[in-house]
């Protein structure tokens, strides 16, 4: 005779090794693998600190993301101890050698007064919007929350800033600051895809804000419709976690470098010209700064940033999206960021070249402590007007 559901569960529970919450509480601090097998919504309402979420329905397909080593101990729990017992049975069949199920589940854990993590309550719309991030073990709800809490400042809503802003907004980066003193021009639209034909003449910060809100109303946009200079840069950048540099001139690049080293804010930097782009992350004190790479700017005739230059329209798209990718990696804390490395992309050859860049022990800026860098020293650079006038 086939057993009833209750009998089946009883039989499984007799076979599965169970563990008391008090013991789990001790193991938790030793970095044991703890897996919550309840549904995503139950997990989101509160869970054990550090637990991974693998709903029982996805156990077989997703457990390896959270517990890759089958010889290692895996602690499972659910709400009452029933689903986790069944899940433990499944993992044993999958070859996991040391699987235990927590007695009494989350309910008993809470009743005993042990620590719980109650994550931010995402709305149903947010869970749907970011569902593809939730499916990535490397991002998941924790990563998405980091994105929603992140503040990223974009210097320029132009060629590089357009795609970067769009994708960071789509990814749910909670606050995007945009610095740009320009208005949308018809000649921008070959590449600056965040703007539109009917917004020609509109300030770029306003045009970008509209596009961002149309895509994702979650995102707060801070607008700075002016040029950064030594008098305002510290105020503008100080509250941001990451800065995306797509500025079109050297003086601002040096000023930005000096200010971000002082505030220890990482800069994801890209530059484009013609068919080629460069990309790197300058993370103060972890890697080189811009002045370690280029201690002095080139003379005006070798600095083609003063006037209009040709650029293949998709190139800033390519480079801007590589920037956005690095920003997301930094926020979520995954992968190997492009620190101490410079990526060159040649669109005509369809090749990339990677160069090593190192901290300069003699760097005039980052060889010193941040507090030692004075206001007077920041952004020391030849006069910009004169610099460009000399270029002819």
């Amino acid at each position, binding site marked *: 005779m086939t057993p009833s559901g209750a009998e089946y569960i009883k039989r499984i529970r007799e076979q599965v090794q169970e563990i008391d919450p008090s013991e789990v509480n001790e193991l938790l601090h030793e970095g044991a693998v703890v897996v919550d097998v309840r549904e995503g919504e139950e997990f989101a309402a509160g869970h054990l600190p550090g637990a991974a979420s693998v709903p029982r329905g996805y156990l077989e397909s997703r457990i390896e993301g959270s517990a890759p080593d089958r010889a290692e101990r895996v602690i499972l729990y659910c709400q009452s101890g029933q689903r986790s017992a069944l899940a433990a049975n499944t993992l044993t069949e999958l070859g996991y050698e040391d699987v235990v199920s927590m007695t009494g589940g989350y309910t008993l854990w809470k009743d005993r007064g042990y620590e719980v993590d109650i994550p931010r309550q995402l709305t149903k719309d947010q869970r749907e919007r970011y569902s593809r991030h939730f499916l990535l073990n490397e991002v998941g709800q924790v990563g998405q929350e980091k994105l929603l809490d992140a503040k990223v400042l974009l*210097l*320029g809503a*132009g*060629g*590089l*800033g357009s795609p970067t802003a769009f994708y960071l907004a789509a990814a749910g980066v909670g606050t995007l600051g945009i610095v740009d003193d320009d208005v949308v021009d018809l000649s*921008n639209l070959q590449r*600056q895809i965040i703007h539109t034909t009917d917004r020609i003449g509109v300030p770029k910060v306003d045009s970008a804000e509209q596009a961002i809100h149309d895509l994702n109303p979650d995102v707060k946009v801070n607008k700075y419709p002016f040029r950064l200079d030594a008098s305002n840069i510290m105020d503008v950048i100080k509250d941001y976690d990451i800065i995306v*540099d*797509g*500025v*079109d*001139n*050297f003086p601002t*690049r040096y000023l930005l470098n000096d200010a971000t080293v002082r505030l220890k804010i990482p800069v994801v930097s*890209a*530059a*484009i*010209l*013609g*068919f*080629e782009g*460069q990309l790197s992350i300058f993370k103060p004190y972890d890697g080189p700064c811009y002045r370690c*790479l*280029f*201690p*002095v*700017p*080139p*003379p005006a005739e*070798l*600095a*083609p*940033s003063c006037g209009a*230059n040709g*650029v293949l329209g998709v190139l*800033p798209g390519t480079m801007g999206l590589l920037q956005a990718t690095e920003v997301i990696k930094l926020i979520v804390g995954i992968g190997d960021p492009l620190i101490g490395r*410079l990526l*060159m992309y*040649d669109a*005509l*050859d369809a090749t990339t*070249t*990677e*160069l*090593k*860049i*190192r901290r300069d022990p003699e760097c005039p800026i980052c060889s010193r402590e941040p507090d030692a860098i004075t206001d007077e020293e920041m952004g020391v650079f030849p006069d910009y007007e004169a610099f460009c006038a000399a270029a002819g």
Partner: protein
Amino acid sequence: MATVRIPPVLRPSVGGEREVSADGESVGAVLSALAEAHPATREQLFGADGELNRYVNVYLNDEDVRVLDGLDTVVRDTDSLVILPAMAGGR
């Protein structure tokens, strides 16, 4: 002969080429050969003291020659040199 990748800003000085070959057993010799063949590149690469201008970085394969032996760094035929001047286009 080693190959030398020419960055966009220097291309007008080498007849528009993106990559040129130049002979030499050291980085200095290869760059001098380049300057010999394309005189307009000389003052862009070298200062009055004969050293590399500080706003130009030169890499042997992926390594900055300044952390190797500078202009004396040995170059083999299969090596490639990358000249990297600062760029700042974003628009």
